[in-house]
């Protein structure tokens, strides 16, 4: 039986958190939690110990980039998928350079979400094995 993977969904929009969580519930062996801002997300990293974080790039107080940098510094094994409507190459490259593993452009189709989730889980598996 495969191990259960923990997924944390971080977004200041209730709508996005609900939407993403619902989509994740379609999958077996996933444990899901959510955070409405960067500070709560960092607390949940310590208590929930997520394997994968779906992280909104633009949030009040603490932005996604700051959260990303902090998580990658303390827990580099966590896979981070950025979610944003930002589509400018320069800004996307900032997230990549900070360690983001994937980038999901909002609004996204269910199919694309599933594809990125699959990629994240594959990356996670190879990190755990390697």
């Amino acid at each position, binding site marked *: 039986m495969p191990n259960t993977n923990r997924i944390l969904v971080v977004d200041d929009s209730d709508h996005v958190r609900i939407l993403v969580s619902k989509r994740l519930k379609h999958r077996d062996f996933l444990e899901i939690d959510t955070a409405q801002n960067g500070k709560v997300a960092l607390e949940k990293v310590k208590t929930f110990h997520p394997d994968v974080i779906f992280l909104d790039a633009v949030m009040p107080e603490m932005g996604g980039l700051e959260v990303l940098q902090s998580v990658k510094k303390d827990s580099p094994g966590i896979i981070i998928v950025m979610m944003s409507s930002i*589509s*400018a*190459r*320069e800004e*996307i*490259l900032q997230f*990549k350079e900070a360690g*983001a*593993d*994937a*980038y*999901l*452009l909002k609004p*996204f189709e269910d199919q*694309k979400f599933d594809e990125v989730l699959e990629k994240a889980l594959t990356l996670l598996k190879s990190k755990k094995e390697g």
Partner: protein
Amino acid sequence: MQCMRCKTEQEVLQKFCNECGAAMGLTCDRCGTVNRMEARHCGACGQPLVASLQEGGAAAARHGRPLPVRQYTTSEIEELLILRRVIKAGEESAKILTQNEIDNLF
């Protein structure tokens, strides 16, 4: 188009004659389009072409001699090249990406 010096036919409008190297057209400083020798303004962007052509340079053009196009110093050329690189880098970084292009980055 025919070279005014050696009369060789050229397949396309180009800067210099394939046969004798005589100037064939005027290159626009702004957009790089090659225009006919007689042109006063660039056909692509409207930029006025070499002032010397309007002040007697037309005779030189008719005889197929290279025109006294704007002469740049080495440092001016370097500045232009740097400026071009900066503009290109700016355009590149501000480029809007699709999800597929983003996927290729990661």
